[in-house]
Protein backbone atom coordinates (compact mmCIF):
# COMPACT_ATOMS: atom_id res chain seq x y z
CA UNK A 1 0.00 0.00 0.00
CA UNK A 2 2.75 2.42 0.98
CA UNK A 3 4.48 2.10 -2.37
CA UNK A 4 1.17 2.48 -4.23
CA UNK A 5 0.49 5.78 -2.49
CA UNK A 6 4.03 6.91 -3.22
CA UNK A 7 3.56 5.95 -6.84
CA UNK A 8 0.33 7.91 -7.09
CA UNK A 9 1.89 11.03 -5.52
CA UNK A 10 4.93 10.86 -7.81
CA UNK A 11 2.70 10.38 -10.84
CA UNK A 12 0.57 13.38 -9.95
CA UNK A 13 3.64 15.57 -9.45
CA UNK A 14 5.12 14.57 -12.82
CA UNK A 15 1.84 15.10 -14.65
CA UNK A 16 1.27 18.46 -12.98
CA UNK A 17 4.74 19.87 -13.53
CA UNK A 18 5.07 18.75 -17.16
CA UNK A 19 1.42 19.60 -17.78
CA UNK A 20 2.04 23.21 -16.76
CA UNK A 21 5.27 23.25 -18.79
CA UNK A 22 3.39 22.25 -21.93
CA UNK A 23 0.13 24.12 -21.38
CA UNK A 24 1.72 27.46 -20.47
CA UNK A 25 2.70 28.25 -24.11
CA UNK A 26 -0.87 27.49 -25.22
CA UNK A 27 -2.29 29.89 -22.64
CA UNK A 28 0.31 32.46 -23.66
CA UNK A 29 -0.78 32.07 -27.29
CA UNK A 30 -4.41 32.57 -26.38
CA UNK A 31 -3.48 35.64 -24.31
CA UNK A 32 -1.18 37.15 -26.93
CA UNK A 33 -3.65 36.68 -29.78
CA UNK A 34 -6.44 38.45 -27.89
CA UNK A 35 -4.45 41.57 -27.00
CA UNK A 36 -6.12 44.85 -27.99
CA UNK A 37 -4.90 48.42 -27.89
CA UNK A 38 -3.89 49.85 -24.50
CA UNK A 39 -4.17 46.65 -22.49
CA UNK A 40 -7.73 45.81 -23.58
CA UNK A 41 -8.88 42.48 -25.00
CA UNK A 42 -9.83 42.17 -28.65
CA UNK A 43 -10.49 39.47 -31.21
CA UNK A 44 -8.82 41.50 -33.99
CA UNK A 45 -6.09 38.91 -34.53
CA UNK A 46 -8.66 36.15 -34.87
CA UNK A 47 -10.89 38.00 -37.32
CA UNK A 48 -7.67 38.97 -39.09
CA UNK A 49 -7.19 35.32 -40.05
CA UNK A 50 -10.25 35.36 -42.30
CA UNK A 51 -9.54 38.85 -43.66
CA UNK A 52 -6.03 37.98 -44.78
CA UNK A 53 -6.42 36.86 -48.40
CA UNK A 54 -2.90 35.51 -48.73
CA UNK A 55 -3.40 33.40 -45.65
CA UNK A 56 -6.74 32.00 -46.82
CA UNK A 57 -5.29 31.20 -50.23
CA UNK A 58 -2.39 29.39 -48.58
CA UNK A 59 -4.81 27.51 -46.32
CA UNK A 60 -6.76 26.30 -49.36
CA UNK A 61 -3.49 25.20 -50.98
CA UNK A 62 -2.54 23.24 -47.87
CA UNK A 63 -5.96 21.61 -47.55
CA UNK A 64 -5.93 20.59 -51.22
CA UNK A 65 -2.39 19.27 -50.82
CA UNK A 66 -3.35 17.22 -47.79
CA UNK A 67 -6.03 15.50 -49.87
CA UNK A 68 -3.96 14.98 -53.03
CA UNK A 69 -0.98 13.68 -51.05
CA UNK A 70 -3.09 11.24 -49.04
CA UNK A 71 -4.75 9.98 -52.24
CA UNK A 72 -1.48 9.58 -54.15
CA UNK A 73 0.04 7.82 -51.14
CA UNK A 74 -2.84 5.34 -50.94
CA UNK A 75 -2.92 4.72 -54.70
CA UNK A 76 0.82 4.02 -54.84
CA UNK A 77 1.24 2.17 -51.58
CA UNK A 78 -1.78 -0.05 -51.04
CA UNK A 79 -1.82 -2.05 -54.31
CA UNK A 80 1.96 -2.39 -54.27
CA UNK A 81 2.15 -3.58 -50.68
CA UNK A 82 -0.77 -5.99 -51.05
CA UNK A 83 0.72 -7.35 -54.27
CA UNK A 84 4.11 -7.82 -52.64
CA UNK A 85 2.57 -9.88 -49.86
CA UNK A 86 0.65 -11.97 -52.37
CA UNK A 87 2.99 -12.44 -55.29
CA UNK A 88 6.29 -10.59 -54.98
CA UNK A 89 7.85 -11.32 -51.57
CA UNK A 90 11.25 -10.73 -53.21
CA UNK A 91 10.51 -7.00 -53.23
CA UNK A 92 9.52 -6.85 -49.55
CA UNK A 93 12.89 -5.66 -48.25
CA UNK A 94 13.52 -3.16 -51.04
CA UNK A 95 10.12 -1.52 -50.65
CA UNK A 96 10.46 -1.37 -46.87
CA UNK A 97 13.92 0.19 -47.24
CA UNK A 98 12.65 2.78 -49.73
CA UNK A 99 9.64 3.66 -47.60
CA UNK A 100 11.72 4.15 -44.44
CA UNK A 101 14.55 5.94 -46.26
CA UNK A 102 13.04 9.43 -45.71
CA UNK A 103 13.66 8.92 -41.98
CA UNK A 104 17.41 8.82 -42.59
CA UNK A 105 17.40 11.78 -44.99
CA UNK A 106 16.33 14.97 -43.24
CA UNK A 107 13.80 17.04 -45.21
CA UNK A 108 16.29 19.90 -45.32
CA UNK A 109 18.73 17.61 -47.17
CA UNK A 110 16.06 16.15 -49.45
CA UNK A 111 15.05 19.64 -50.53
CA UNK A 112 18.60 20.33 -51.73
CA UNK A 113 18.22 17.48 -54.22
CA UNK A 114 14.62 18.33 -55.00
CA UNK A 115 15.33 21.94 -55.99
CA UNK A 116 16.78 21.02 -59.42
CA UNK A 117 14.13 18.31 -59.85
CA UNK A 118 11.35 20.81 -59.22
CA UNK A 119 12.77 23.10 -61.90
CA UNK A 120 11.76 20.30 -64.30
CA UNK A 121 8.47 19.53 -62.60
CA UNK A 122 7.43 23.18 -62.82
CA UNK A 123 8.57 23.35 -66.43
CA UNK A 124 6.32 20.45 -67.41
CA UNK A 125 3.39 20.79 -65.01
CA UNK A 126 3.33 24.53 -64.26
CA UNK A 127 4.27 26.06 -60.93
CA UNK A 128 1.09 25.31 -59.01
CA UNK A 129 1.67 24.62 -55.30
CA UNK A 130 -0.17 21.35 -55.90
CA UNK A 131 3.01 19.97 -57.49
CA UNK A 132 4.22 19.67 -53.88
CA UNK A 133 2.01 16.58 -53.78
CA UNK A 134 4.98 14.57 -55.09
CA UNK A 135 7.37 15.74 -52.39
CA UNK A 136 4.78 15.31 -49.63
CA UNK A 137 3.90 11.80 -50.71
CA UNK A 138 7.57 10.95 -50.18
CA UNK A 139 7.55 12.59 -46.73
CA UNK A 140 4.52 10.62 -45.52
CA UNK A 141 5.85 7.27 -46.82
CA UNK A 142 7.45 6.06 -43.55
CA UNK A 143 4.33 6.78 -41.48
CA UNK A 144 1.94 5.45 -44.10
CA UNK A 145 4.05 2.36 -44.71
CA UNK A 146 3.96 1.38 -41.05
CA UNK A 147 0.20 1.91 -40.78
CA UNK A 148 -0.62 -0.01 -43.98
CA UNK A 149 1.88 -2.76 -43.15
CA UNK A 150 0.30 -3.26 -39.72
CA UNK A 151 -3.13 -3.38 -41.35
CA UNK A 152 -2.09 -5.99 -43.91
CA UNK A 153 -0.31 -8.08 -41.27
CA UNK A 154 -3.51 -8.23 -39.20
CA UNK A 155 -5.57 -9.95 -41.91
CA UNK A 156 -5.12 -13.30 -43.63
CA UNK A 157 -4.53 -11.70 -47.00
CA UNK A 158 -3.51 -14.87 -48.90
CA UNK A 159 -6.63 -16.84 -47.93
CA UNK A 160 -8.95 -13.90 -48.58
CA UNK A 161 -7.41 -13.26 -51.98
CA UNK A 162 -7.47 -16.94 -52.97
CA UNK A 163 -11.09 -17.25 -51.92
CA UNK A 164 -12.04 -14.20 -53.99
CA UNK A 165 -9.99 -15.38 -56.98
CA UNK A 166 -11.53 -18.85 -56.90
CA UNK A 167 -14.94 -17.19 -57.07
CA UNK A 168 -13.83 -15.46 -60.25
CA UNK A 169 -12.89 -12.02 -58.94
CA UNK A 170 -10.35 -10.01 -60.91
CA UNK A 171 -7.25 -8.73 -59.09
CA UNK A 172 -8.76 -5.27 -59.17
CA UNK A 173 -11.91 -6.59 -57.45
CA UNK A 174 -9.77 -8.37 -54.86
CA UNK A 175 -7.99 -5.12 -54.11
CA UNK A 176 -11.04 -2.87 -54.10
CA UNK A 177 -13.68 -5.15 -52.55
CA UNK A 178 -11.59 -7.41 -50.31
CA UNK A 179 -8.30 -5.77 -49.30
CA UNK A 180 -9.44 -2.15 -48.92
CA UNK A 181 -12.53 -2.81 -46.76
CA UNK A 182 -10.57 -5.18 -44.53
CA UNK A 183 -7.79 -2.72 -43.79
CA UNK A 184 -9.87 0.44 -43.87
CA UNK A 185 -8.98 1.35 -40.29
CA UNK A 186 -5.29 1.27 -41.19
CA UNK A 187 -6.02 3.33 -44.30
CA UNK A 188 -7.92 5.94 -42.28
CA UNK A 189 -5.02 6.05 -39.84
CA UNK A 190 -2.45 6.47 -42.61
CA UNK A 191 -4.57 9.20 -44.24
CA UNK A 192 -5.08 11.18 -41.01
CA UNK A 193 -1.35 11.05 -40.29
CA UNK A 194 -0.52 12.29 -43.76
CA UNK A 195 -3.11 15.08 -43.52
CA UNK A 196 -1.60 16.26 -40.25
CA UNK A 197 1.92 16.05 -41.65
CA UNK A 198 1.07 17.99 -44.82
CA UNK A 199 -0.77 20.74 -42.94
CA UNK A 200 2.27 21.20 -40.70
CA UNK A 201 4.97 20.97 -43.36
CA UNK A 202 7.24 23.98 -43.73
CA UNK A 203 10.75 22.96 -44.77
CA UNK A 204 10.16 21.86 -48.36
CA UNK A 205 7.40 24.34 -49.19
CA UNK A 206 9.36 27.31 -47.95
CA UNK A 207 12.64 26.38 -49.66
CA UNK A 208 10.96 25.56 -52.97
CA UNK A 209 9.07 28.88 -52.69
CA UNK A 210 5.51 27.59 -52.58
CA UNK A 211 2.76 29.34 -50.66
CA UNK A 212 1.40 26.95 -48.08
CA UNK A 213 -0.19 27.54 -44.70
CA UNK A 214 3.01 27.31 -42.65
CA UNK A 215 4.97 29.44 -45.10
CA UNK A 216 2.34 32.20 -44.83
CA UNK A 217 2.17 31.92 -41.05
CA UNK A 218 5.91 32.38 -40.89
CA UNK A 219 5.87 35.37 -43.28
CA UNK A 220 2.95 36.98 -41.51
CA UNK A 221 4.76 36.69 -38.19
CA UNK A 222 7.24 39.31 -39.39
CA UNK A 223 4.55 42.02 -39.65
CA UNK A 224 1.59 40.85 -37.54
CA UNK A 225 2.61 38.49 -34.76
CA UNK A 226 -0.93 38.38 -33.30
CA UNK A 227 -2.51 36.77 -36.37
CA UNK A 228 0.39 34.33 -36.78
CA UNK A 229 0.08 33.26 -33.18
CA UNK A 230 -3.70 32.83 -33.52
CA UNK A 231 -3.23 30.61 -36.59
CA UNK A 232 -0.45 28.66 -34.89
CA UNK A 233 -2.73 27.94 -31.95
CA UNK A 234 -5.44 26.80 -34.36
CA UNK A 235 -2.98 24.52 -36.17
CA UNK A 236 -1.85 22.87 -32.93
CA UNK A 237 -5.42 22.39 -31.73
CA UNK A 238 -6.55 21.03 -35.09
CA UNK A 239 -3.68 18.53 -35.23
CA UNK A 240 -4.52 17.53 -31.67
CA UNK A 241 -8.16 16.84 -32.59
CA UNK A 242 -7.01 14.75 -35.58
CA UNK A 243 -4.66 12.62 -33.49
CA UNK A 244 -7.10 12.36 -30.61
CA UNK A 245 -9.72 11.02 -33.04
CA UNK A 246 -7.08 8.63 -34.34
CA UNK A 247 -6.67 7.12 -30.86
CA UNK A 248 -10.34 6.06 -30.97
CA UNK A 249 -10.01 4.63 -34.48
CA UNK A 250 -7.20 2.38 -33.26
CA UNK A 251 -9.23 1.30 -30.25
CA UNK A 252 -12.21 0.14 -32.33
CA UNK A 253 -9.95 -2.13 -34.27
CA UNK A 254 -8.52 -3.71 -31.13
CA UNK A 255 -12.03 -4.40 -29.87
CA UNK A 256 -13.18 -6.07 -33.09
CA UNK A 257 -10.07 -8.21 -33.14
CA UNK A 258 -10.80 -9.36 -29.60
CA UNK A 259 -14.39 -10.19 -30.49
CA UNK A 260 -13.30 -12.40 -33.36
Amino acid at each position, binding site marked *: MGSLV*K*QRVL*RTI*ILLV*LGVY*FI*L*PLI*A*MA*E*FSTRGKGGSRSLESWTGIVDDEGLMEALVNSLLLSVTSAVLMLV*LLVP*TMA*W*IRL*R*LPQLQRL*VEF*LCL*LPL*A*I*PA*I*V*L*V*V*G*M*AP*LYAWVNYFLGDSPLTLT*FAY*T*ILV*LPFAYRAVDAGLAAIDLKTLAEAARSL*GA*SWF*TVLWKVVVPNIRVALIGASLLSVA*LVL*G*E*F*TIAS*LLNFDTL*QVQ*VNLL*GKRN*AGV*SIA*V*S*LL*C*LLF*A*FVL*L*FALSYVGQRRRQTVVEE
Partner: protein
Amino acid sequence: MTAVAPVATTPGGSTPAKRGGAAGRPSVAAWLVAVPFLAFVGIFLVYPTVLVLFGAFQDSNGALTLGNLTTLFTGVVFDAFVRSIELSALTAVIGAIFGALLTWAVAVGKQEGMVRRVVVAASGVLAQFGGVPLAFAFLATIGFEGLVTKYLRDNVGIDIFAGSAWLFELPGLTLVYTFFQIPLMVIVFLPALDGLRPQWREANASLGGTSWTYWRHVGGPILTPPFLGALLLLFANAFSAYATAAALVSQGSPIVPLQIRGFLTGEVVLGQENLGKALGLGMVIVVSIAMGVNVLLQRRVAKWVR
Protein backbone atom coordinates in the same frame (compact mmCIF):
# COMPACT_ATOMS: atom_id res chain seq x y z
CA MET B 1 -18.45 -1.16 -64.17
CA THR B 2 -19.61 -4.63 -63.14
CA ALA B 3 -20.21 -5.64 -66.74
CA VAL B 4 -16.49 -5.48 -67.40
CA ALA B 5 -15.56 -8.16 -64.89
CA PRO B 6 -16.46 -11.33 -66.82
CA VAL B 7 -14.69 -10.11 -69.94
CA ALA B 8 -11.54 -9.04 -68.16
CA THR B 9 -10.94 -12.05 -65.95
CA THR B 10 -11.52 -15.08 -68.24
CA PRO B 11 -10.70 -17.37 -65.30
CA GLY B 12 -10.08 -20.51 -67.35
CA GLY B 13 -7.41 -18.97 -69.52
CA SER B 14 -5.41 -16.77 -67.18
CA THR B 15 -5.39 -18.60 -63.87
CA PRO B 16 -3.12 -21.56 -64.72
CA ALA B 17 -0.51 -19.27 -66.24
CA LYS B 18 -0.50 -17.05 -63.18
CA ARG B 19 -0.46 -19.96 -60.78
CA GLY B 20 2.61 -21.26 -62.56
CA GLY B 21 4.21 -17.89 -61.96
CA ALA B 22 3.36 -17.90 -58.26
CA ALA B 23 4.94 -21.29 -57.71
CA GLY B 24 8.29 -20.41 -59.23
CA ARG B 25 9.50 -16.97 -60.19
CA PRO B 26 6.76 -14.33 -60.64
CA SER B 27 5.89 -13.59 -64.25
CA VAL B 28 6.93 -10.37 -65.95
CA ALA B 29 3.35 -9.14 -65.59
CA ALA B 30 3.57 -9.61 -61.82
CA TRP B 31 6.62 -7.36 -61.67
CA LEU B 32 4.82 -4.66 -63.66
CA VAL B 33 2.45 -3.98 -60.75
CA ALA B 34 5.35 -2.67 -58.69
CA VAL B 35 6.55 -0.34 -61.45
CA PRO B 36 4.47 2.78 -60.65
CA PHE B 37 5.59 2.78 -57.03
CA LEU B 38 9.22 2.10 -57.85
CA ALA B 39 9.25 4.70 -60.62
CA PHE B 40 7.72 7.35 -58.36
CA VAL B 41 10.08 6.66 -55.48
CA GLY B 42 12.98 6.48 -57.93
CA ILE B 43 12.26 9.94 -59.31
CA PHE B 44 11.22 11.79 -56.16
CA LEU B 45 13.30 10.11 -53.46
CA VAL B 46 16.25 8.20 -54.88
CA TYR B 47 17.16 10.73 -57.58
CA PRO B 48 17.27 13.78 -55.24
CA THR B 49 19.21 11.76 -52.68
CA VAL B 50 21.76 10.62 -55.25
CA LEU B 51 21.99 14.19 -56.53
CA VAL B 52 22.98 15.40 -53.06
CA LEU B 53 25.34 12.54 -52.27
CA PHE B 54 27.20 12.72 -55.60
CA GLY B 55 27.03 16.50 -55.84
CA ALA B 56 29.00 16.63 -52.60
CA PHE B 57 31.97 15.18 -54.51
CA GLN B 58 31.78 17.55 -57.48
CA ASP B 59 33.02 21.08 -58.02
CA SER B 60 30.96 23.73 -59.84
CA ASN B 61 32.07 22.32 -63.22
CA GLY B 62 31.06 18.77 -62.35
CA ALA B 63 34.63 17.49 -61.91
CA LEU B 64 35.37 15.17 -59.00
CA THR B 65 36.76 16.87 -55.92
CA LEU B 66 37.11 16.39 -52.20
CA GLY B 67 37.21 20.16 -51.71
CA ASN B 68 33.62 20.43 -50.51
CA LEU B 69 34.16 17.73 -47.92
CA THR B 70 37.39 19.19 -46.57
CA THR B 71 35.59 22.54 -46.23
CA LEU B 72 33.20 20.80 -43.81
CA PHE B 73 36.07 20.63 -41.34
CA THR B 74 36.90 24.32 -41.46
CA GLY B 75 35.55 27.62 -40.20
CA VAL B 76 31.87 28.45 -39.79
CA VAL B 77 30.67 25.19 -41.35
CA PHE B 78 32.59 23.07 -38.88
CA ASP B 79 31.41 25.26 -35.99
CA ALA B 80 27.82 24.77 -37.15
CA PHE B 81 28.27 20.99 -37.11
CA VAL B 82 29.73 21.10 -33.61
CA ARG B 83 26.85 23.32 -32.39
CA SER B 84 24.26 21.14 -34.10
CA ILE B 85 25.67 18.02 -32.47
CA GLU B 86 25.84 19.72 -29.06
CA LEU B 87 22.28 20.99 -29.37
CA SER B 88 21.00 17.59 -30.48
CA ALA B 89 22.87 15.65 -27.80
CA LEU B 90 21.82 18.02 -25.00
CA THR B 91 18.14 18.10 -26.01
CA ALA B 92 18.17 14.33 -26.57
CA VAL B 93 19.37 13.77 -22.98
CA ILE B 94 16.91 16.27 -21.50
CA GLY B 95 14.10 14.90 -23.66
CA ALA B 96 14.91 11.29 -22.80
CA ILE B 97 14.99 11.89 -19.03
CA PHE B 98 11.85 14.01 -18.69
CA GLY B 99 10.13 12.04 -21.45
CA ALA B 100 10.82 8.77 -19.63
CA LEU B 101 9.33 10.19 -16.41
CA LEU B 102 6.23 11.36 -18.28
CA THR B 103 5.96 8.00 -20.05
CA TRP B 104 6.09 6.22 -16.71
CA ALA B 105 3.36 8.51 -15.32
CA VAL B 106 1.20 7.66 -18.33
CA ALA B 107 1.97 3.94 -18.36
CA VAL B 108 1.01 3.31 -14.73
CA GLY B 109 -2.40 4.92 -15.37
CA LYS B 110 -5.41 3.30 -17.01
CA GLN B 111 -4.83 1.76 -20.45
CA GLU B 112 -7.79 3.50 -22.11
CA GLY B 113 -7.88 6.41 -19.66
CA MET B 114 -8.33 10.04 -20.63
CA VAL B 115 -4.91 11.10 -19.29
CA ARG B 116 -3.17 8.63 -21.52
CA ARG B 117 -5.22 9.56 -24.59
CA VAL B 118 -4.61 13.28 -24.16
CA VAL B 119 -0.88 12.92 -23.45
CA VAL B 120 -0.33 10.55 -26.38
CA ALA B 121 -2.29 12.70 -28.84
CA ALA B 122 -0.64 15.93 -27.65
CA SER B 123 2.77 14.24 -27.85
CA GLY B 124 2.07 13.21 -31.42
CA VAL B 125 1.20 16.78 -32.36
CA LEU B 126 4.28 18.33 -30.80
CA ALA B 127 6.71 15.59 -31.79
CA GLN B 128 5.81 15.33 -35.43
CA PHE B 129 3.85 18.37 -36.50
CA GLY B 130 5.03 21.19 -34.20
CA GLY B 131 7.31 23.05 -36.59
CA VAL B 132 6.48 26.70 -37.17
CA PRO B 133 3.58 26.93 -34.66
CA LEU B 134 6.00 25.90 -31.93
CA ALA B 135 8.24 28.86 -32.72
CA PHE B 136 5.26 31.20 -32.40
CA ALA B 137 4.20 29.53 -29.18
CA PHE B 138 7.56 30.60 -27.79
CA LEU B 139 7.30 34.12 -29.10
CA ALA B 140 3.94 34.38 -27.33
CA THR B 141 5.39 32.97 -24.11
CA ILE B 142 8.91 34.29 -23.68
CA GLY B 143 9.42 36.53 -26.71
CA PHE B 144 10.14 40.23 -26.13
CA GLU B 145 6.41 40.85 -25.58
CA GLY B 146 5.53 37.34 -24.38
CA LEU B 147 3.21 36.56 -21.49
CA VAL B 148 5.91 35.31 -19.13
CA THR B 149 8.39 38.01 -20.16
CA LYS B 150 5.88 40.76 -19.47
CA TYR B 151 4.76 39.21 -16.19
CA LEU B 152 8.33 38.94 -14.92
CA ARG B 153 9.19 42.45 -16.09
CA ASP B 154 6.09 44.18 -14.69
CA ASN B 155 5.46 42.21 -11.51
CA VAL B 156 8.78 40.70 -10.45
CA GLY B 157 11.17 43.20 -11.96
CA ILE B 158 13.27 40.68 -13.87
CA ASP B 159 14.12 41.34 -17.52
CA ILE B 160 14.86 37.92 -18.99
CA PHE B 161 16.43 39.56 -22.02
CA ALA B 162 18.77 41.75 -19.98
CA GLY B 163 21.81 39.68 -20.96
CA SER B 164 21.14 39.02 -24.63
CA ALA B 165 18.48 37.94 -27.11
CA TRP B 166 19.16 34.38 -25.98
CA LEU B 167 15.80 33.07 -27.24
CA PHE B 168 17.01 33.53 -30.81
CA GLU B 169 20.33 31.84 -30.14
CA LEU B 170 21.47 28.43 -29.01
CA PRO B 171 20.02 28.50 -25.44
CA GLY B 172 16.62 29.45 -26.88
CA LEU B 173 16.79 26.65 -29.43
CA THR B 174 17.64 24.20 -26.66
CA LEU B 175 14.57 25.25 -24.69
CA VAL B 176 12.26 25.15 -27.73
CA TYR B 177 13.62 21.77 -28.86
CA THR B 178 12.65 20.17 -25.53
CA PHE B 179 9.06 20.86 -26.56
CA PHE B 180 9.24 18.29 -29.30
CA GLN B 181 11.93 16.05 -27.81
CA ILE B 182 10.05 15.20 -24.59
CA PRO B 183 6.85 14.31 -26.52
CA LEU B 184 8.82 12.21 -29.03
CA MET B 185 10.29 10.26 -26.11
CA VAL B 186 6.77 9.52 -24.88
CA ILE B 187 5.77 8.10 -28.26
CA VAL B 188 8.90 6.04 -28.72
CA PHE B 189 9.29 4.81 -25.13
CA LEU B 190 5.67 4.04 -24.23
CA PRO B 191 5.58 0.62 -25.98
CA ALA B 192 8.66 -0.47 -23.98
CA LEU B 193 7.06 0.50 -20.66
CA ASP B 194 3.80 -1.16 -21.68
CA GLY B 195 5.83 -4.32 -22.25
CA LEU B 196 6.70 -4.60 -18.54
CA ARG B 197 4.34 -7.26 -17.19
CA PRO B 198 2.64 -6.65 -13.85
CA GLN B 199 3.44 -10.29 -12.97
CA TRP B 200 7.16 -9.44 -12.81
CA ARG B 201 6.45 -6.78 -10.26
CA GLU B 202 4.29 -9.18 -8.26
CA ALA B 203 6.95 -11.90 -8.45
CA ASN B 204 9.50 -9.41 -7.15
CA ALA B 205 7.19 -8.40 -4.28
CA SER B 206 6.30 -11.98 -3.35
CA LEU B 207 10.00 -12.82 -3.14
CA GLY B 208 10.41 -9.95 -0.67
CA GLY B 209 11.82 -7.42 -3.16
CA THR B 210 11.31 -3.68 -2.85
CA SER B 211 10.63 -1.05 -5.48
CA TRP B 212 14.37 -0.49 -5.64
CA THR B 213 15.24 -4.16 -6.25
CA TYR B 214 12.55 -4.28 -8.93
CA TRP B 215 13.98 -1.34 -10.89
CA ARG B 216 17.59 -2.41 -10.21
CA HIS B 217 17.23 -6.04 -11.29
CA VAL B 218 14.13 -6.26 -13.50
CA GLY B 219 12.78 -3.01 -14.90
CA GLY B 220 16.13 -1.26 -15.32
CA PRO B 221 17.93 -3.95 -17.31
CA ILE B 222 14.89 -4.54 -19.53
CA LEU B 223 14.36 -0.86 -20.26
CA THR B 224 18.00 0.13 -20.80
CA PRO B 225 18.24 -0.92 -24.47
CA PRO B 226 14.97 0.75 -25.54
CA PHE B 227 15.97 3.83 -23.54
CA LEU B 228 19.31 4.08 -25.34
CA GLY B 229 17.58 3.43 -28.66
CA ALA B 230 15.13 6.24 -27.98
CA LEU B 231 18.02 8.52 -26.99
CA LEU B 232 19.67 7.94 -30.38
CA LEU B 233 16.39 8.53 -32.19
CA LEU B 234 15.88 11.80 -30.32
CA PHE B 235 19.39 12.85 -31.27
CA ALA B 236 18.72 12.15 -34.97
CA ASN B 237 15.39 13.95 -34.72
CA ALA B 238 16.84 17.15 -33.25
CA PHE B 239 19.74 17.02 -35.67
CA SER B 240 17.35 16.89 -38.66
CA ALA B 241 14.88 19.48 -37.38
CA TYR B 242 14.60 22.64 -39.43
CA ALA B 243 11.19 24.38 -39.31
CA THR B 244 11.19 25.58 -35.70
CA ALA B 245 14.74 26.90 -35.88
CA ALA B 246 14.10 28.57 -39.24
CA ALA B 247 11.01 30.38 -37.97
CA LEU B 248 12.79 31.49 -34.79
CA VAL B 249 16.23 32.43 -36.08
CA SER B 250 16.06 34.73 -39.09
CA GLN B 251 19.54 36.18 -38.82
CA GLY B 252 22.70 34.13 -38.86
CA SER B 253 23.02 30.37 -39.21
CA PRO B 254 24.17 28.83 -35.96
CA ILE B 255 23.23 25.24 -36.90
CA VAL B 256 23.71 23.08 -40.00
CA PRO B 257 20.10 23.08 -41.30
CA LEU B 258 20.14 26.88 -41.24
CA GLN B 259 23.48 26.90 -43.07
CA ILE B 260 21.85 24.80 -45.79
CA ARG B 261 19.03 27.36 -45.94
CA GLY B 262 21.68 29.97 -46.62
CA PHE B 263 22.97 27.96 -49.59
CA LEU B 264 19.47 27.43 -51.00
CA THR B 265 18.34 31.02 -50.67
CA GLY B 266 21.28 32.40 -52.53
CA GLU B 267 24.00 33.43 -50.10
CA VAL B 268 26.42 31.35 -52.15
CA VAL B 269 30.05 32.17 -52.63
CA LEU B 270 31.18 31.63 -56.23
CA GLY B 271 32.77 28.21 -56.70
CA GLN B 272 31.02 26.73 -53.65
CA GLU B 273 27.72 25.80 -55.31
CA ASN B 274 28.05 22.22 -54.15
CA LEU B 275 29.04 22.99 -50.57
CA GLY B 276 25.34 22.84 -49.60
CA LYS B 277 25.26 19.26 -50.89
CA ALA B 278 28.35 18.43 -48.86
CA LEU B 279 26.57 19.78 -45.78
CA GLY B 280 23.63 17.54 -46.70
CA LEU B 281 25.95 14.55 -47.01
CA GLY B 282 27.43 15.40 -43.62
CA MET B 283 23.95 15.47 -42.08
CA VAL B 284 22.99 12.15 -43.66
CA ILE B 285 26.21 10.60 -42.32
CA VAL B 286 25.58 11.82 -38.75
CA VAL B 287 21.94 10.67 -38.82
CA SER B 288 22.91 7.31 -40.34
CA ILE B 289 25.52 6.72 -37.63
CA ALA B 290 22.91 7.35 -34.92
CA MET B 291 20.40 5.08 -36.67
CA GLY B 292 23.03 2.40 -37.40
CA VAL B 293 24.18 2.23 -33.77
CA ASN B 294 20.53 1.89 -32.80
CA VAL B 295 19.99 -1.03 -35.19
CA LEU B 296 23.12 -2.82 -33.88
CA LEU B 297 21.98 -2.22 -30.30
CA GLN B 298 18.50 -3.62 -30.89
CA ARG B 299 19.92 -6.62 -32.76
CA ARG B 300 22.18 -7.38 -29.80
CA VAL B 301 19.19 -7.19 -27.49
CA ALA B 302 17.08 -9.43 -29.71
CA LYS B 303 19.83 -12.05 -29.26
CA TRP B 304 19.72 -12.03 -25.45
CA VAL B 305 15.98 -11.91 -25.26
CA ARG B 306 15.84 -15.17 -27.17
